[in-house]
């Protein structure tokens, strides 16, 4: 895989001569009158600072990126003057519709401004002062073990695609870097919470991981984004809201409060990307529907794996007593219905119209009976 330069430059007369000329004061200034647009960007709103949107000007702006990026395969900054022999970095995503979303720059700015630090922003000591009952702590540990699996897969998804996206989509890549840090941070928070309570980590879930790997290994970014950003992001958002609503400790409430913000941004991007893709490539609608037909079953793995379902029942009901489990089952039934409803709302609003009518999930959800 290694790349080797075309020659030994320490022996190259041309290089040595060029360097010598400059260091003797004979500047070529070949760059001085670069053939580029002259602009002076400024913040539109001083309270907000200087955003990427403020620099969406002329040839420099993201609005002017064409659907097909054919003229750049190197890391040259969009809008700078290309010259000389530029290498091919091997980008495989060169079409805007495959990755773009109209909200990507605002999500990026929002993400940067809404950072948090798990080490100090979570009141960890509260668990020392108010430890949970053993069964509750074990349930939390299992839930957070599962959440680490989700966080790792989400991190991998952004990470595997960033390097192969054309550098002209710098705002998109920057957003994905922000997502990478979001997921690293959430993974950190989930791990810290799982361990701090003293119950240790619990069991990795075969069904969850098999499902997540199927989503992660989607053939294209836009398919993977439907799965990881929209479907998984949306599911985790509802889960974080549910966990916050039934939080057994202030630590969990605080953690899930931050997590819901991060996952909501992910779901928003997922919706925006699918919407943009279908608006610009309407002929792909049926292909995406078919992709979702084949991969939607993973949603059931997330909703139904015992490593997720059972701890949620315990946490929602408050314990393992019969009446608590019953109450937990009622709450989780509502949670599942809400997660499914919102999934269809998002994916249909993004352009997969009548998805709920086509999907096999509603029929399964309809069979849920809450505990009597």
């Amino acid at each position: 895989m290694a790349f080797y330069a075309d020659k030994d430059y320490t022996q190259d007369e041309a290089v040595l001569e060029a360097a010598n000329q400059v260091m003797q004061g004979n500047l070529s200034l070949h760059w001085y009158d670069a053939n580029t647009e002259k602009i002076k960007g400024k913040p539109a709103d001083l309270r907000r600072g200087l955003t990427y949107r403020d620099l969406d000007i002329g040839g420099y702006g993201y609005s002017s990126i064409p659907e097909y990026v054919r003229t750049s395969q190197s890391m040259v900054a969009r809008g700078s003057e290309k010259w000389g022999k530029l290498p091919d970095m091997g980008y495989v995503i060169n079409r805007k519709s495959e990755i773009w979303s109209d909200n990507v720059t605002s999500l990026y700015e929002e993400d940067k401004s809404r950072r948090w630090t798990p080490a100090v922003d979570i009141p960890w000591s509260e668990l020392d002062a108010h430890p949970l009952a053993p069964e509750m702590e074990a349930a939390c540990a299992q839930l957070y073990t599962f959440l680490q699996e989700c966080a790792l897969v989400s991190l991998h998804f952004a990470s595997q695609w960033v390097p192969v996206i054309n550098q002209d989509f710098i705002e998109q890549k920057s957003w994905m870097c922000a997502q990478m840090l979001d997921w690293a941070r959430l993974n950190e928070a989930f791990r810290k919470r799982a361990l701090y309570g003293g119950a240790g980590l619990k069991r990795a879930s075969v069904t969850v991981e098999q499902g997540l790997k199927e989503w992660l290994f989607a053939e294209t970014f836009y398919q993977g984004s439907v799965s990881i950003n929209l479907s998984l992001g949306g599911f985790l958002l509802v889960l974080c809201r549910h966990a916050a609503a039934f939080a057994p400790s202030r630590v969990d409430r605080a953690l899930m409060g931050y997590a819901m913000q991060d996952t909501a941004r992910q779901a928003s991007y997922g919706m925006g990307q699918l919407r943009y893709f279908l608006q610009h490539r309407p002929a792909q609608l049926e292909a995406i529907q078919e992709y979702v037909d084949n991969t939607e079953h993973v949603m059931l793995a997330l909703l139904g794996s015992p490593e997720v379902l059972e701890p949620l029942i315990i946490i929602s009901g408050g314990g393992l007593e019969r009446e608590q489990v019953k109450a937990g089952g009622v709450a989780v039934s509502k949670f599942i219905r809400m997660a499914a409803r919102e999934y269809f709302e998002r994916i249909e609003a993004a352009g997969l119209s009548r998805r709920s009518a086509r999907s096999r999930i509603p029929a399964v959800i309809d069979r849920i009976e809450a505990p009597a």
Partner: protein
Amino acid sequence: MAAEQEKFRRLGFIDTTFGVSVGHNGRKRNFVLEFEVFELRGVREVDSIDSTQVDFTIEGDAAVWREMIENIHRNGEADSAHDINTLAHFGERLKVVYDNPDGHDKLYRFMESIQKFFDLSSKVEVRFN
């Protein structure tokens, strides 16, 4: 909110316009709150909330809103049984209505700031009609 600028700044940008609807004896009082950057730009009372003009609306009976505010006053901030997320979670006490899931998700993208805004009621004198 202006007095607590630093806290809101630390939480980050909040860019959302949402409605608050308070029901009582079959009638409703409706408010639209507009947040931008780090600030509350405006609050206005309206006869009805146009769902296409707001990201989402939080609806609830006056008794629930009162319970939340009183909880905030007692504790300095909402406890976990009385925060917006918990009260609105299943739509049984407070309900979140929206036209567009994009708008709905903004409630969660800015939840910490929105909750902190409601928690500010602990610092003002409140009377219930």
